[in-house]
């Protein structure tokens, strides 16, 4: 029995020995995984593996030794969680010892230590001893990249699990690490190393006397200059390194004295990327710095930022400079001061003011805006900075406004003033009396009113904006100011055609201010407008000229613009309704009814009803749906307040066509209800809708009925009833499509039902889509069917919307594309010549609406078809194909460059199309072609430049414009700097 067990035990040990021998002597890689798997499954212990390795671990030949240790390390990497504490101690001792060994052995030793560093059973004290051994015995920077990476991994692992022990090492750990990373060059390793330094600082390891060394060893990489090699498998971007280094440099105020001079030096350099990086790093530093760190460097920092903003050729540098100044000021404003310390903020701001204010006095010169931007960046930093700067700048700008008399200069000054006033809104003052603008309120108001009465439209525009900003300051304007302001807005609301922009701005300002000051508007503006309206009514009846008419229109627009506050709406709405009655009474009595039944008016009402319905509370929705459905089905008007109707309301029976048009309102209501609201008499309603949808007397109401039917279908839960409705619809469509007067109505119904089903991924949708596709070759309905694809793919505004609780699956376009495009392509090839354009049109509608990332992989198969579509004589197909190709040229130049020959020829052909829109689109595509790789294009350059000379002389200016920009771009192809 015992002997048998011994034999059984010996057998696997022999097998293990065999595996080990194969790995070490036979140089096979497979056995390592085999051994590791066996250890994991418990067949062997780690001790047995060590025993089996036995002499290999001490073999005098370094290669064999390395191979032996490599096997052990690989096993440990996979099985470190199984190790016992005692085993770990022995293994660590062994590995530490091996660090002194031959250089061939070191990589495997490091692998083993990495495995052990992951080990949970590592007893206290050993982490420190491992690191000490590595720092002492290994010259890390002479190892290959992979092994350096292993060392960083060991350190990271220990830092994660043994933080307290490592901190016990004190500054020695920091020093050791500095030596490890000193001279590192590989971006992969740098990312890890930067991470370690960041942790050293943020986890508060002792840096001791090595702050400057630690700074040196990282800052030597600043600014990062790294271009990833092409096809880099590691995917490290320049941006990754920049951000990771920045997080190190900006992590502690202790680097400030070394970092700030470096940043200043780099901002002053000539290299754009260095400037940007330095300014962004400075920006990041300000989050942790205080006044103490910045103090000595403020003058130089300001000088550099000022120079960059004043003189730069790059908008990005300007923006970063302003952002840095903003954070500097934030930082200075934040610091808590001891009582006797001087406040750096004041002196810093006074420096800025001193350097900038005289430029503000020269509103024609280039530096006026950079100066204003600098001041505004600083003023936007804190309430204190804002107070200081505004109280200095406002009087200056007010004075300058009066000193300069040209309206263009005044406009610049007022625009700057506007900028400073806007900044005020950022800070809410608890005590309104302390607000710096208070003292200048009267001057500001009189200045704004001066601008509003001035001769220049541009000045008036800025004046209107300033007035809005002033009004937005709570309790700033007095009631007299408001009365004056309202008077000006009233005048500006009636400006003539030529000052359209000013009038629009005045209406917008009225809307904003009316919401804030309803009393002022209802007491000063509404009466004036009422009077105006009354005069207009009598003028209209006398049939006066167009000026009166436009004045009348202005008045109505002003009334609608100020209706932004409930109390004003209460006054204006009755006024408008009364006016409507008044105007119509004087014509025919029936006109009002006609007006309300016009397509646009009904559509507008429908959108109001739809929006309101989506927000109904469940109870109210349930109540309204009963009323409304019974109103439309049974003519039950009892719930309407003034039910004195002359005739019965029966839109679905033989009611007048006017009544039937109101189905669009029913549609807006029932199609916007939440899905859980039950609709009474649904069965009857659906049948009536279906009936009306194929009634050919009034396209408006039959389309509304079809949409309503589709909207309800989309929300109806799957089941027998839904299938019944669908069967009814399909029967109706088939009956209608057969022949007769209502083919186009039946087609519309088919289209909307298909859309309703496509949106919810209903299985029947594919069948209906196939039917629709079949209609593409119908001589009568073909073009309409092609346009129908556009409807299927686009988002509706009234029914079948997500807001209206319809079931819209997010990927429905992609799905439709994958399901149907192959069939469309096939249909195209099979179709007779005269209906081919329909297929192309349908296809281009589908492609046009598809998200470009989905389209790109499908391109190679479709491209030939699209190119064929370019030769299609139909303008609409040409146009939509061009608009489909243009973004593809920009986004997938590689794929497109295979077809450059065809593209150039076809685009150039289309650039002389009789349709102006096609010519424009073709030239835009010619422009987009320049994004293809230059070597592909260069052979065509002379030909294209010659050909594009022709559209330069096009009779239409808009075409010439596109030709100029396309040709200009082709000229620049292959020139240096492009």
């Amino acid at each position, binding site marked *: 029995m015992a002997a048998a067990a011994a034999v059984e035990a010996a057998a696997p040990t022999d097998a293990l020995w065999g595996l080990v021998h194969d790995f070490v002597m036979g140089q096979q890689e497979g056995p390592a995984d085999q051994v590791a798997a066996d250890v994991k499954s418990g067949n062997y212990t780690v001790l047995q593996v060590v025993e089996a390795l036995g002499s290999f671990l001490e073999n005098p030949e370094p290669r064999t030794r390395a191979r032996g240790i490599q096997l052990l390390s690989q096993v440990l990497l996979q099985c470190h969680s199984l190790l016992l504490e005692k085993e770990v101690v022995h293994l660590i001792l062994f590995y530490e010892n091996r660090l002194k060994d031959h250089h061939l052995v070191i990589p495997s030793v490091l692998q083993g230590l990495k495995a052990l560093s992951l080990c949970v059973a590592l007893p206290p004290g050993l982490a420190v001893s491992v690191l000490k051994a590595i720092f002492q015995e290994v010259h890390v920077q002479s190892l290959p990249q992979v092994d350096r990476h292993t060392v960083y991994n060991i350190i990271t692992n220990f830092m994660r699990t043994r933080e307290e022990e490592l901190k016990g090492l004190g500054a020695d750990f920091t020093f050791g690490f500095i030596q490890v990373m000193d001279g590192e060059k590989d971006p992969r390793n740098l990312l890890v190393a930067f991470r370690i330094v960041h942790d050293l600082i943020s986890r508060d390891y002792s840096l001791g006397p090595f702050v400057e060394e630690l700074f040196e060893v990282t800052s030597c990489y600043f600014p990062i200059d790294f271009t990833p090699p092409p096809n880099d498998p590691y995917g490290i971007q320049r941006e990754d390194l920049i951000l990771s280094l920045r997080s190190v440099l900006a992590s502690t105020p202790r680097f400030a004295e070394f970092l700030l001079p470096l940043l200043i030096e780099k901002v002053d350099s*000539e290299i754009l990327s260095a400037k940007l990086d330095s300014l962004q790093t400075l920006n990041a530093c300000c989050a942790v710095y205080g006044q103490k760190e910045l103090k000595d460097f403020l003058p130089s920092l300001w000088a550099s930022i000022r120079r960059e903003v004043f003189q730069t050729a790059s908008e990005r540098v300007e923006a970063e400079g302003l952002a840095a100044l903003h954070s500097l000021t934030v930082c200075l404003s934040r610091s808590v001061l001891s009582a006797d310390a001087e406040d750096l903020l004041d002196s810093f701001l006074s420096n800025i003011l001193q350097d900038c204010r005289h430029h503000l006095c020269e509103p*024609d*010169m280039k530096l006026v805006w950079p100066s204003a931007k600098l001041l505004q960046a600083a003023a936007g930093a804190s309430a204190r900075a804002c107070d200081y700067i505004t109280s200095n700048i406002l009087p200056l700008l007010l004075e300058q406004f009066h000193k300069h008399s040209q309206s263009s200069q005044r406009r610049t000054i007022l625009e700057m003033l506007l900028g400073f006033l806007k900044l005020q809104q950022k800070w809410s003052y608890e005590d309104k009396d302390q607000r710096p603008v208070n003292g200048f309120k009267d001057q500001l108001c009189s200045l704004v009113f001066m601008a509003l009465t001035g001769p220049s439209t541009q000045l008036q525009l800025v004046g209107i904006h300033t007035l809005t900003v002033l009004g937005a300051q709570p309790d700033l304007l007095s009631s007299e100011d408001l009365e004056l302001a309202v008077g000006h807005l009233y005048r500006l609301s009636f400006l003539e055609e030529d000052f359209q922009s000013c009038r629009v701005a005045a209406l917008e300002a009225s809307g904003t201010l009316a919401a804030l000051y309803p009393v002022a508007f209802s007491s000063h503006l509404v009466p004036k407008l009422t009077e105006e309206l009354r005069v207009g009514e009598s003028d209209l009846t006398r049939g006066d000229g167009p000026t009166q008419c436009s004045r009348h229109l202005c008045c109505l627009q002003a009334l609608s613009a100020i209706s932004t506050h409930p109390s004003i709406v209460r006054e204006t709405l009755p006024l408008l309704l009364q006016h409507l009655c008044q105007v119509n009474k004087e014509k025919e009595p029936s006109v009002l009814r006609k007006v309300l039944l016009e397509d646009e008016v009904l559509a507008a009402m429908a959108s109001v009803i739809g929006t309101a319905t989506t927000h109904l509370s469940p109870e109210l929705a349930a109540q309204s749906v009963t009323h409304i459905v019974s109103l439309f089905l049974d003519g039950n008007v009892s719930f309407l307040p003034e039910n004195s109707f002359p005739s019965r309301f029966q839109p679905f029976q033989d009611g007048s066509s006017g009544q039937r048009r109101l189905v669009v309102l029913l549609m807006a209501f029932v199609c916007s209800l939440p899905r859980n609201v039950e609709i009474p008499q649904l069965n009857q309603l659906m049948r009536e809708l279906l009936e009306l949808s194929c009634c050919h007397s009034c396209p408006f109401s039959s389309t509304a009925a079809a949409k309503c039917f589709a909207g309800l279908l989309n929300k109806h839960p799957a089941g027998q009833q839904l299938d019944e409705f669908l069967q009814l619809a399909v029967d109706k469509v088939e009956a209608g499509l057969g022949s007769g007067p209502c083919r186009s109505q039946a087609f519309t119904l088919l289209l909307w039902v298909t859309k309703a089903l496509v949106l919810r991924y209903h299985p029947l949708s594919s069948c209906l889509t196939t039917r629709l596709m079949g209609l593409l070759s119908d001589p009568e309905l073909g073009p309409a069917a092609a346009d129908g694809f556009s409807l299927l793919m686009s988002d509706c505004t009234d029914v079948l919307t997500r807001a209206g609780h319809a079931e819209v699956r997010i990927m429905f376009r992609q799905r439709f594309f994958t399901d149907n495009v192959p069939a469309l392509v096939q249909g195209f090839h099979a179709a007779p010549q005269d209906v081919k354009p329909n297929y192309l049109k349908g296809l281009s509608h589908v492609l046009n609406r598809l998200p470009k990332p989905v389209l790109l992989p499908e391109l190679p198969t479709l491209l030939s078809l699209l190119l064929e579509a370019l030769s299609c004589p139909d303008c609409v197909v040409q146009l939509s194909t061009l608009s489909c190709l243009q973004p593809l040229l920009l986004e997938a130049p590689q794929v497109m460059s295979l077809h450059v020959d065809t593209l150039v020829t076809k685009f150039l052909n289309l650039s002389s199309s009789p349709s*102006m829109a096609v010519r424009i689109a073709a030239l835009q595509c010619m422009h987009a072609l320049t994004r293809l790789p230059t070597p592909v294009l260069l052979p065509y350059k002379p030909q294209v*430049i010659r050909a594009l000379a022709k559209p330069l002389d096009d*009779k*239409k200016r808009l075409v010439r414009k596109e030709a*100029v920009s396309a040709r200009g771009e082709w000229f620049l192809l292959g020139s240096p700097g492009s």
Partner: protein
Amino acid sequence: MVGGGGVGGGLLENANPLIYQRSGERPVTAGEEDEQVPDSIDAREIFDLIRSINDPEHPLTLEELNVVEQVRVQVSDPESTVAVAFTPTIPHCSMATLIGLSIKVKLLRSLPQRFKAPVISLPDGRAHYPRDPRLRACSEQATCR
């Protein structure tokens, strides 16, 4: 853009020049959208071609520096002639030659070929004629078309 590019970090000849307002995009009229109505080439169209050229010294356009103005563009579509006068920001500006050349090249590339030779001149009436033989050669080169 033709004639772009800054002069690096050296001192600018004129660091704080006067800035003029940019005219907005030309509004599209109903006539321009009508397929049938031909639009003739007018001064504004020529001005739109050259106003966005960047000054060699500043990140500003010739329009903003008032180097070119619409009133100093003379164009006749039926006669196929065009003449542009420009004013450098400061007298004897060393960049005047380069600016003139930029305008000329831009027009050569953007106008129909029937406009044989755009006349570029300084406002005092002197014809713009680069003294530097390389620039002169370039302004006469046929490849500019």
